Structure formats: structure tokens, C-alpha cells
């Protein structure tokens, strides 16, 4: 093991951890007697600076994949780099929302925990080994539990954190149990070796493999809030302070989906691996001997599980969102629905090239960006009106025209109306699904997803209806902090521009993958 390589490969994570410590030190040592607003602003900006340095580090570290022996531990470039950069940028925006919110007296600690969680997210985006995956996932999750509970004066915040923590602990246990089975089957903790092992070893196609996959899906389904592991999401989205909720809804999702991409891609690109390792294992099987179909077992098993999760999430997420009166809960159920669409893209993963991985990343990054914006608007409205009910949005166009305009952009983008980026993300994803697999099943599922997008427009319009159509009960203006407003406008402009010029982001993502 070469420690210089390890340091280079984990440079972005290291930068974030150092930034987290720096924020704590600055807050405790120099700003103890300053006003809370000042401390919050300082902590947030320091955090943003740390993220930007980490962005540089990702570029600097990007050629350096890290292996121990022959086994790849941390991937570099490709999906890993895209997800890492996405996580860092989204973390910046989530931190900027902190400037305007007064839920905590310890902004330094909040920012530090956010940065450490983000480091966990960076780790699992690149991880190719079960142990690294688990460590990264726990680093991310433990931070999220703390962030959820950060509004110490709010009972809701504590309650939702406990719920989140209990569900999270349970799902981590499932995940670990599933990992242990995988290790038992294949004798390795490396993703690609596990897939290979499931093909070559006799135990590969046993029900044990399916059991392991189901358990892993349970653990990761919890992270991405897929039905039936979604129960924490509405409560957490409702109870967590706005910046924390935005962080959970975006960064944590990006990281978890990046991990799902790694696992799926490992299962789907086994042919490449076979070419690399040699065809010995295949040709060694004498003709007439029962052919092990472990790889098919892995692929079809995993695909089937993801399909079931996707269908359940699309249906339940969209239908439950119809009846919500709290905007945060609405966003939670809409997140479940969006997770369903994305899982569809993963379930019908393209065996050729990286098209599917790119479209899934495109979707989750733009979704994360939009949802941070939506939480930013909810956060401002909530701070002034004291409520996240839909009725708190009454007459928003009069109370704050700028805020109402960005809310219009975000919610329409979530509904998938062109020319906003949400539409393009959906189109791209569904086109990739249909391009990757022929047949009636993927087509039916895409048709279902498109039909449910039509349903989703109804509930997004419920918010916009209050903001634009219905008269205000209280006409007093809503003032947002200029930094928040600027951040929201930057996000809205990005949502519009990326929607009008979809090849910008698409080309940028494709640039990280080997050509061809």
C-alpha cells in the first residue's frame, strides 16, 4: 500500500475535514463574542471556501485511482468525479442557506458537521470496496442524524432525528448483513471481484446471493428514500432545519445514487472485467457441465429488485404527495417519486458505454440543485410566517415577487416542464432506458413514469396556485437575506439555462468518461 497514493486519492476528503476543523477553531477562538449573524455568515463562507478548495483537489486527484494490491479501492474520474464535484457544489449552496436562518446558536458546529458528512459523500462516490463503502456511508449518515436534530429548541427536529436515526441504524444493519453474505459468497470485498466470484463460484447463483442483494437494496433504498424504506423521509424533511433538509435532500441523495451506480455498473460491466482478467474462467468450464449462471443471477436479481423499488416509489410517492398540506412533506414525497424515476434508469442500465450512468447523474445533480432551491424558498417563507403549510405561501407574488418567481422556476422544473432542466433530465433518463433495453416492460414502466409526471404537476401547482393565484391573507412583505436571495437566483438561472442548453452539463459530464 502506497500512502502517497492514498493521500492523493483522498485529497478532497482531507481538504473537507481540515476545513471542518478550521471552521470550528475560527468560530470558537475568534468569534466567540461576535453577533450570531456574523458567526453564521463566517462559518458558511469558510465552509464554501473549503468546498471550493476541495473542488480543486478533485481535479488535482482525478488521475489517481487508489488500489490495494490488485483490488481497486477508490475509483477516479468518470462517475466518481462527477458525483464528487456535484456534491461539493450542492454543499456550497446548502451552506449559503444557513446565512439567513437562526435556528442554532452554534453555526460553526453545524458547518463542521455538514463538511464531514460531505466528506463521507465524497468517499462513497468513489468507493469500490464494501468496507470503504460502509465507512463512507456511516460517516455521511451520522452527520445527517446530527444535522436533523440541530434545531435544539424544536421538538419536531428532535423527534424526526430520532426516527431518522432508528430507521438509519436498522438499515445500516441490513446493509452490513448483506455485505457479509456477499463476502462469504465471493471471498472478496471488492465490488468487481464479488461480481466475478458470483459467476465463477458454485455458490454464485444460490438464493443466498438474492438474499444479500435484497438486504443491500434495503440498506441503500433507505438512503435514497425508495418505497418501502421511505418512512423516515417525510418526518425528517418536515422536522429538520431548512439548510439541513436541503442538504439531506440533495447531497445525501447524490452520494447514495453514485454508490448505486457503482454497484450496478460493476454488475453490468462484468464483461469488461472478464476481458481484463482473462477468459480462463469461461473456457475452463467443460462442455456439457451445468453452466453456472451467477452473473445473470446478479444482474437480473439486482435489476428486478430495483424495478420493484422504482414502481413502488413512483406510485406511492406521487399519490401520497397529492394530499399533503405541508410543503416540506410534499417535497419529501416528491423526492420519493423522483427516486423512483432514477431507480428506473438504474434498473434498465445500459450494458454498453456509460450512457446510463451519465443520465442518472445528470438527473440526480439537477434534481439536487432544484430541490435545494425549493428548500431555500420554504426556509425563507417559514422563517417569516412560522409555518411550512401551503397556506403560508398565500400571495407570495405580492409579498416577495423575487421569491415567488424563483419558486415558480423550481416547482415547474420539478414537475418537468420545459424549457427547465427537470424536463430535460427526465427525457434524457427515459430515452436512455428505452435505448438500453428493448421490450414491453421498460416501455410500460417509462409510460407509467411519464403518466405520473402528469400527476405530479397537480401537486406542484397547488403550491404555485397559492403563491400566484390566491389572495394574500397577510400582505406584509417578506424579506430575504441578500445572500440567500442571490443564491436562489443563481440556482434558478442555472435551472433555466441548463434547461435551454442541455448539452452544457451533458458535455461536461461526458468529458469525465473515457471517450467512446
Amino acid at each position: 500500500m502506497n500512502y502517497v497514493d492514498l493521500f492523493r486519492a483522498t485529497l478532497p476528503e482531507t481538504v473537507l475535514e481540515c476545513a471542518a476543523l478550521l471552521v470550528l477553531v475560527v468560530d470558537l477562538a475568534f468569534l466567540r463574542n461576535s453577533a450570531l449573524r456574523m458567526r453564521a455568515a463566517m462559518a458558511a463562507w469558510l465552509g464554501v471556501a473549503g468546498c471550493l478548495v476541495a473542488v480543486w483537489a478533485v481535479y488535482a486527484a482525478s488521475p489517481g485511482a487508489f488500489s490495494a494490491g490488485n483490488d481497486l479501492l477508490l475509483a477516479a474520474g468518470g462517475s466518481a468525479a462527477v458525483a464528487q464535484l456535484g456534491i461539493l457544489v450542492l454543499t456550497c449552496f446548502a451552506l449559503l442557506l444557513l446565512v439567513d436562518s437562526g435556528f442554532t446558536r452554534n453555526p460553526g458546529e453545524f458547518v463542521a458537521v455538514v463538511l464531514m458528512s460531505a466528506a463521507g459523500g465524497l468517499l462513497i462516490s468513489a468507493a469500490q470496496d464494501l468496507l470503504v463503502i460502509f465507512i463512507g456511508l456511516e460517516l455521511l449518515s451520522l452527520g445527517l442524524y446530527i444535522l436533523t436534530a440541530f434545531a435544539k429548541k424544536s421538538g419536531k427536529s428532535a423527534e424526526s432525528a430520532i426516527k431518522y436515526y432508528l430507521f438509519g441504524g436498522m438499515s445500516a444493519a441490513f446493509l452490513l448483513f448483506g455485505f457479509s453474505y456477499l463476502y462469504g459468497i465471493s471471498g472478496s470485498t471488492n465490488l468487481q471481484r464479488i461480481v466475478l466470484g458470483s459467476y465463477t463460484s458454485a455458490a454464485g447463483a444460490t438464493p443466498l446471493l438474492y438474499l444479500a442483494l435484497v438486504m443491500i437494496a434495503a440498506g441503500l433504498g433507505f438512503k435514497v428514500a425508495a418505497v418501502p424504506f421511505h418512512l423516515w423521509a417525510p418526518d425528517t424533511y418536515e422536522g429538520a432545519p431548512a439548510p439541513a433538509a436541503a442538504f439531506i435532500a440533495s447531497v445525501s441523495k447524490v452520494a447514495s445514487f453514485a454508490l448505486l451506480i457503482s454497484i450496478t455498473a460493476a454488475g453490468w460491466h462484468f464483461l469488461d472485467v472478464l476481458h481484463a482478467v482473462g477468459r480462463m474462467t469461461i473456457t475452463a468450464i467443460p462442455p456439457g457441465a451445468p453452466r453456472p449462471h451467477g452473473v445473470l443471477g446478479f444482474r437480473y436479481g439486482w435489476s428486478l429488485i430495483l424495478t420493484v423499488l422504482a414502481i413502488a416509489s413512483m406510485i406511492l410517492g406521487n399519490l401520497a404527495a397529492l394530499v399533503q398540506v405541508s410543503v416540506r412533506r410534499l417535497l419529501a414525497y416528491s423526492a420519493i417519486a423522483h427516486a423512483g424515476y432514477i431507480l428506473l434508469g438504474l434498473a434498465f442500465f445500459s450494458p454498453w458505454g456509460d450512457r446510463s450512468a451519465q443520465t442518472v447523474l445528470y438527473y440526480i445533480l439537477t434534481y439536487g440543485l432544484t430541490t435545494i432551491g425549493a428548500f431555500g424558498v420554504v426556509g425563507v417563507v417559514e422563517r417569516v410566517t412560522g409555518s411550512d403549510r401551503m397556506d403560508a405561501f398565500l400571495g407570495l407574488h405580492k409579498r416577495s415577487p423575487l421569491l415567488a418567481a424563483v419558486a415558480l422556476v423550481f416547482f415547474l422544473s420539478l414537475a418537468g416542464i420545459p424549457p427547465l432542466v427537470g424536463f430535460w433530465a427526465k427525457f434524457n433518463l427515459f430515452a436512455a432506458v428505452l435505448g438500453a433495453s428493448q421490450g414491453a416492460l421498460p416501455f410500460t414502466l417509462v409510460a407509467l413514469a411519464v403518466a405520473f409526471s402528469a400527476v405530479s404537476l397537480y401537486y406542484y401547482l397547488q403550491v404555485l396556485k397559492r403563491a400566484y393565484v390566491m389572495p394574500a391573507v397577510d400582505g406584509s412583505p417578506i424579506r430575504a437575506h441578500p445572500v440567500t436571495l442571490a443564491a436562489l437566483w443563481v440556482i434558478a438561472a442555472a435551472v433555466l439555462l441548463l434547461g435551454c442548453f442541455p448539452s452544457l452539463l451533458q458535455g461536461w459530464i461526458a468529458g469525465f468518461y473515457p471517450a467512446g
Partner: protein
Amino acid sequence: MLAFALYISFAGALLQALLPKSRPGLARWLALATTIAGLAIAIAGYAAAFGQGRQVLVDVPWVASMGIHYLLAADGISRVVILLTGIAAVAGVLFSWNVELRTNQFFAFYLLLIGGVYGVFLSFDFFLLFVFYEIAIVPKYFLISIWGSTRREYGAMKLVLYSFVGSSMILIGLLAAYAASGAHSTSLIALAHAGLPVSFQMWCFPLVFIGFAVLAGMWPLHTWAPTGHVAAPTAASMLLAGVVMKLGAYGCLRVAIAVFPHGLDPWGFTFLGLASWRDVFALLAVIGIVYGALVALAQSDFKFVIGYSSVSHMGFVLLGLMTFNQIGLDGAVLQMFSHGVIAGLLFAIVGRIVYDRTHTRQFADLEAMHLSRRLPFAAWVFVVAGMASMGLPGFSGFIAELQVLIGAWTARPWWTIAAGIGIVVGVAYTWRALQRAFFSDRIPTPHELESEHAHKLAPITWPEIAGVALLGVSTLVVGLYPRILLGAIEPAVKALLGGVQ
């Protein structure tokens, strides 16, 4: 050049959104200037390319990795509907001159809708067309729910959900066609030449056709139209009936028929006397013609009469499309223009000239008001518009419906007979509306006379006269000299038929 109609409208919408709220007058004049500029471009583009074939206006790669192009082009059919959009847009602004509530926002949404409509009519790339089609949906919601009347939130939501469900079907068809063609392009021309398998066209055609026909008001998916029209503010109902329903019909022709022509082929078996999708949709169109007319006959609300008459008239467009022959398609496109202008005029009279003065649309109340005496202008304009709507010679509706009927006769004679019943009922409901709303023979009581004297109706304003003149002259010119449009439509239809056969 035509592309600038699109850009000007979007730029106008953006400008309106940035205008201060306190300057409604400025917003009005700006909107009028924007739409007049659009109309001028439409007329100039129409005249410059009269009778010519398809011209590509802009063609740049948009999403290179998927072969999607920003491809704007125009042929005779597009030029006619763009001309209609220009006329309807100007008239709509003139008839919304009295909008006082959030004027600049009203015109921002209005121009956004217009821009989307221009975009659909100019797009020759399926993906681009779909994008503009969706852009046109959202402004309708806000126009109706903020500035509308009777059950506006219900009408607006219903309209938007119907449109969005329709567009979902189109999106599924788009995705399927893109995946099936393997042509790595979403251009309508490339898709039409991609040689899509007949079995694929057989199920994709009805999907896309129904998706568009939702917006064209095809029975039984028309129910958004009457409620939406009634709930909408005058300008929006003018645009809904005049232009937005044409989006659907245009999409049926430009996308569904031109890209999936084999979808019209016979199934090879007969089910309930129907042997192809063509029979199915023609039957639905004929039902729409008769049903819309009969329901219009039974309404007590003046605006509902016009709303259902739109369903009936749009049935002619769909029937014309299903004839799939030269004269029937000519008639369908001409009917799009004709109905756009006439429905706009009728909605303007009911929604703006009458309703904004009397504050009622119930025939029972209008009968007591003796409007032919108190609003002679409205009464006589309605006589003219009603005659045009009935399809009397000399107006655009006559030549359009005649062509559709001739086309239908050559295809399936019984379609013509059934549609003929619709025309007769059409005369009846227009006559009934005319008589009950304006020329009631009730003798006024002295008390009524006194109150009429005390509450004089506001005088007719210049924007109303200008708007009426614009729409009235349009239908008359086309009615007296139909070559002015047919000269552009016929070669385009011939090219389209030649391309698919």
C-alpha cells in the same frame, strides 16, 4: 424571418414581467406593439413565401449527442396558422384593454403563451415542437385562474391536467419513435423517412394522435374545453378557442399523420363496423360535431353556447384530417383558420362587449335587457359573426366546411350525412342565442325602462371596434377570396400527401 415572431413574443413577455406594476397603460401599449409586430412579421412572411414549399429558417444542433436540432421551418400550412396566431394575438390584446388587475403579469403570461404557440407552428423537430407545446400549457393555467370568472380554478386545473396528460402521451410516443427509428434524430422529416415498422406505427399513431386531439377538443376528451373557455378571461378564451385548439389539430396533422401515416391503414379486421384508426377517429369527430351542436342548443349560459360550438367546429377539422385526401385536408387547415377567427369574434362579443357591461351571461337575464336597443353594435356584430359561424356563403367558414364535407363524401359518404346534421343544429343554436341574447320580443315594463335609463351601459371603446374590425375583415376576406389562403395550403397539403404515400 418568421422566427422573429417567436423571439419578439418571448422578449415581450420578459419585458412585461420586468415592468413596474404601477404602469398598466404602458403594459397595454407594449403588448399591442409586440403582437402587432408579430402580426406584421406573419403577414410579411406569408406574402413573401406565398405558394412556395417548405423553407428552413434556422437549423442548428441543439443537443448534438442525441441528434436534436433547433430546427425552425415553415410550409404553407404553418404560414397560415402563424397568420391566424398573429391576428388572434392582436385581437386578444385589444379585447383585454380593460384588464386592470396585475396588467403587466397578465400580458407577460399572454405573450408567453403566444410565443409558445408560434414555436409549435414553426418547429420541424419533434422534440422542439414538444418543448414549445409544453411551454404553452403553464401560462394558460395562470391566465385562467387569476383573471378568469365562473369556477376559474376548477376550469384552469382541468384544462392544464388534460393538456398535460395529452402531452404525456405525446412524450411517450416521441420517446418510442426516437428509440424505434434508430435514426439518431428527432427531426420530423427524418422520422417520417425512418421507415418505422407498420406494426409500430399502428400503436404509436393513436397514442400521439389522441395526445394532440385532447387539445383539439375531440369528443369524448373535449370536456376541458367548455369549462376552460367559460372560466377564462375574454382574451384567453379567444386564444384557447382561436389558437390553442389549433395546436392540437396542427400536431395531429404535422406529427401524428405525417410521421406515422401507416397508422391510418386498415387493421385487417372489423370491430363494430370500424376497420381502422381512421374510422375510429372520424366517428369520434362526427360525434363531436353533432354532440357539440346539440349541447350548445341546450345551454342557458351564453358563453357555454360558444364553448360547445367550438367543440362542434373543431370536429370538422378532425373529420377533415381523417378524410386524408387533398380537398379534405385543405378544408381542415382552412377550417382551423376560419374557426380561429370566428370563435375569437364570438368570445369577444360574449365575454368582453356584453359580459363586461351586463355582468351576466344567463339568457334569462339578458332577455330582460333588450340589448339590441341598448348595445346595437354588439347585436349587429353578433349577427355577422353568427352568420359566419353558421357557415353562410361569403364567410370563411362556408368554404372550409364545404371542402371538409366534399372530402368526407369521397372517403365515406355517411360521415357527410351525419356532419350535415351538425350544421343544421349549428344554425339552430346560433339563431337561438342571437334571439334570446339580443332580439328578445319581451315588451319592457316602464320600471325596466326607467332603470335602463338610469344605468346606461358603458359606450363601446375604440379597442373593441378595432378588434371586431380586424377579426370581421379577416373572415370576410377569406370568405370572399379563399384563394388567398388556399393558394398556400394546397401545395403544402399536396407535398404532405405526396411525402407519406
